[in-house]
Structure formats: C-alpha cells, structure tokens
C-alpha cells in the first residue's frame, strides 16, 4: 500500500483528458477534451472542502477520479493516504459518495438500499439493519422505511443517498452538487445535515456551483474552471481578494467592444472589458457610473437593454478570475 502524508486528500499534477466525441467520417476531428488540468490539491483531515466552478469546469471529473470511477490520464491522487490507482478498493472502503443525481437501487426499498449497501462493505446483516434504522431516523426518513424509492421525493432520495454514503461509516464523504434540483426548504435541511456531519469530524468534499452554499458551508474553497485551480482559500480570505470594485454590467443592443476605451477613461474605473453585447466595468464608484456608461453607448448609437450590479463577493471574484458567471 502506498501511503502519502496524513491529509485526507492529496493530488499531484492530476490530469484527465477525454477522447473527443466521434465525428462523422470526413468531418474535422475534434480536439481531445481536457477536463482536469494539472490539479494539485491538498485537503486536510476533518476539513469541509468545496470545489466551486461553473458547469463543465471539471468538478465532477475530479470527484470521479477521487472516488475511483474515472481513470486519471496522468498524475497521482491519494485518498486517506491510499493511491486511487494502486488500491481503488482500499479507497472505496474509506469513502462515501453522494452522486449528482440520486441513483438508488430501484428494486429495493429505502431501508434495503441502506442495508444492502452496508453489506457490500462486509458489515453483517444484523449490524447493517441496525445502522440503516438509525440513519433513516437521523435523516428524517423513518416513515419512508419500506417505501419503494420511486415513492420518495427528490429531496428524500437525496437524503437517502447521504444515508447510503454513510452506511459503512466512511472517513471521507464526497458530494457532487448535492442540492441541485432541490427546493429551498430541502436544500436548507440538507445543509443542516452536512453541518452536523462536519461537526462530527468527518472530512467532506463537495462540489457546487452555488456561491451561497460554498460560502455558508465550506472551511476552504477551491475555485476551478477549465480543469484548473484558479484560487484556493477560506471563503473569508477569498472575499477579501475579490476586486474591491463593484462590477457594473451594461447590456447594449450591439457589441460593446467599441465602448471599452471610452469606458476605461470614466473616473473610478479600474478595468473595462466587453463580452459580446455586455460592457463590464470594474469601478470604485459603483452605480454612479451607470449614467456615464449609458451616455457612452448612446454616443455610439446604442441603447441599453439591461443593467446589473455585483458587489464585491465570491461571485465578483469568480467573474474576475474566469470571465464568466457561475449560474
């Protein structure tokens, strides 16, 4: 068994390249897709870690590699000190996985889902039944014990997935976008469960594209896009790093490129850029600049379609790092 240091998770130069999707004969071949690009990551024992990024940023692939479901193209990854390449079964013994979309065993009841999953880890049937009962109780699913999984709501199925992930008492819990598709109430209920698990000292690794979720729950955040780690710190520190400026975004009815040079001369502007029809201005003067920006547009014969202000936050940091929005 290859052991690394005692961090819960460690990756070195982790890279995953997918073959391009097959094209019709004669068509130009698509380039390979780099989903994870030289990722170096270290997550401590007991940490609640969040991977934040837009869809397609490589979050799910990263989780896939760490949970032994995706082969890394190169680089190394260790979970609980065990190499995912050298001993995938050893890694699986120590992790619980909550998938992006609930995938319960539909031939079994809620209770049986937990019991059988535990027995796959060598837990005796009696012990598995006792633990399944406790977990259903704790996750507020006790009355759904004998329900077929099809009879559970989305939120209940997601909680069942958390129960399943915990059924063999893993050291590290992975959750891939656990609150996507949940109503606000179910989302808050899930947050409480996750906070509870974190308090008990379990390492939690979660991906999300919800800023608020990352901010509220995680000890530390990694911001990823195009498979690369762009920033890594506590939510508080990251917010401090966010550009001190408000982002003023004015959408015109024509490409905004022509307006950039004038906009960057507006007082208080630290940076101005065009994204299609959007003019993005990072400004210390916030909303005050709006009339000036509108005037610049009108000077070029354009009219305004939409205006959006973002105060310094994880979101503005994210936009300044990646040039795109999360949601």
């Amino acid at each position: 068994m290859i052991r690394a240091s005692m961090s819960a998770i460690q990756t070195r130069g982790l890279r995953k390249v997918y073959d391009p999707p097959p094209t019709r004969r004669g068509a130009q071949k698509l380039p390979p897709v780099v989903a994870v690009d030289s990722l170096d990551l270290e997550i401590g024992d007991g940490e609640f870690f969040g991977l934040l990024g837009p869809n397609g940023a490589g979050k799910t692939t990263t989780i896939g590699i760490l949970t032994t479901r995706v082969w890394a193209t190169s680089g190394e990854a260790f979970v609980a000190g065990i190499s995912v390449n050298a001993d995938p079964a050893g890694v699986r013994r120590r992790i619980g996985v909550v998938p992006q979309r609930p995938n319960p065993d539909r031939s079994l009841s809620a209770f049986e889902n937990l019991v059988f999953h535990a027995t796959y880890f060598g837990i005796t049937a009696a012990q598995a039944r006792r633990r399944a009962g406790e977990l259903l109780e704790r996750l507020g699913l006790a009355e759904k014990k004998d329900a077929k999984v099809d009879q559970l709501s989305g939120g209940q199925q997601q909680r069942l997935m958390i129960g399943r992930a915990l059924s063999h008492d893993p050291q590290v819990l992975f959750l891939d976008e656990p609150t996507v598709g949940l109503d606000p109430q179910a989302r808050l209920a899930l947050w409480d469960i996750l906070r509870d698990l974190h308090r008990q000292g379990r390492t939690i690794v979660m991906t999300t594209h919800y800023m608020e979720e990352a901010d509220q729950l995680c000890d530390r955040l990694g911001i990823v896009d195009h498979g690369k780690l762009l920033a890594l710190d506590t939510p508080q520190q990251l917010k401090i790093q966010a550009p001190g400026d408000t982002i003023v975004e004015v959408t015109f009815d024509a490409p905004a490129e022509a307006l950039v040079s004038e906009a960057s001369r507006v007082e208080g502007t630290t940076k101005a850029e065009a994204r299609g029809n959007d003019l993005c201005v990072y400004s210390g003067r916030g909303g005050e600049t709006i009339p000036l920006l509108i005037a610049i547009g009108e000077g070029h014969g354009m009219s305004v379609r939409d205006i959006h202000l973002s105060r310094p936050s994880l979101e503005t940091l994210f936009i300044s790092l990646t040039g795109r929005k999360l949601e």
Partner: protein
Amino acid sequence: MSERVPYWRIFAALLMRDVTVARREIGYFLVRTTLQPLLFVLIFGLIMPRMGIVGRAYTTTMLPGILALSLALSAVQAVSLPMVQEFGWTKEIEDRLLAPIANQLVAVEKIVAGAMQGIVASIFVLPIARLIMGPIPGLTFRNVGMLMIMTILSGLAFSAIGLFIGTAIAPQQIGLMFSVIIAPMIMFGCTYYPWRGLDAVPVMKWLVLIDPLVYVSEGLRSALTPAVPHMPEPAIIAALLALAALFTYLGLRSFMKRAMS
C-alpha cells in the same frame, strides 16, 4: 470501515442482493421467460401428437430442447435487461461499483446470478412440460452428474452472453436484438429437432454450430434422453466452456468500459 474485507464476503453480499430481488420478481420473471417454451410444449407436445400430425416420440426429442430454450432465454434476460437499465438512465449500478472489490467481480457476480436464474427457469419448466406431454419415452434422470455439468455450463455461457449484450448494445437496439439475434438462435438451436437429425441437411448441420444454443440443447439431450442420437459429450462440454470463457471475457471488457471512464 477501513479493515480489509475478504472478497468472497462482498461477492456473497452482491449475490444476496440479486437473489432477494429475483425472488421478489420470480412470478413475473418466469412468465416472461418460460411462457413461450411452455406454449410450444402445449402445441407440439400435446395438441399435434393428438392430431396425429407429429409422432408421440417427438416429445422425447423436444423436451430437452424446451428446457434448453428456457434456460438460455432466462439466463440471457436475467443479466442483459438489468444491465441495460442499471447502466442507462438510472445509473443504479454505481451503488455496487462503489463496493470495495474489483469492479470485474461485480460483473462476475451478475453472471453467476444469471446462471442461477436460468437453471431455476428450466427446473420450473420440466415438471409442467412433463405434465402437459404425458409420459416421455426414454427420459431418464440417472445421469445426474452430466445433467449438472450441462446445466451449469449452459447457464454460465448464456448469462455471460447476456452480460455482453446488456453492456455492449445500445438500449434502443435491445428490441432489435431479440428479433434479429434471439429469434434465429432459437430456430437454429436444435431445440425442436436433434442435431443428428440434420444429417438430412448436411450444410445446416455445420452451419448451426455457430449457434450457442445448439450445445445447450444437445447437452441436455445427452443427459436427459441419451438414447436419442446426439453430439458427443466432450465436444459439447468443450464448446460450452469456450463460449462461457469467450463471452465472460467480452462481457467483462464491455462492462469495464461502461463502469470506468
């Protein structure tokens, strides 16, 4: 859980899951896989002999074929249909792919469970067929050893074929598979006639050898109705072993392609 758990215990737990589910759905499963063979028994084993269109002795030829058909169809379907579903939209299989065991063993477990279901189906069909057809001349249960070898090998071979089909064929093409692959396989599988009977049509006699069902039919014939001329046992066993090995290899390969990306 961080202690190493012996693989056989995890394997047993996976098998237990499939046995539990299969037991719950056994009525539906048996109707789906044995109705066709039993209807055939009714027409060719009862009605047509009474009409005098086929001889009474035909039941002797037909019984092993019908059992072979039930066993093979059940084993194939017991694995292929769940695989299509569990690797498809529902992704249910991930529950088991997370078990701390080599993923290949999850697939091997499916083969074992499928073989068991195939054998159960043939055990279910035997007494009903016997009841419908009446006494069957030449039927014997004395070759227990040979019977067990033939049923187990046949179950494994067809269950492995099911694994391959279920993981390699696109879900939309499953219906097509049953009409294009399974239907001809049944007709050319020496189920309704003995292989030696094809002496009358020599080209067919050699062509049908590519049909895996031939070996199941002939294997059961050699064990249950040894008086009917049949393919030599060593050839049957070798063919079944080769089929089981080939399709286990192909099935595992396509299973792993689906399991890991």
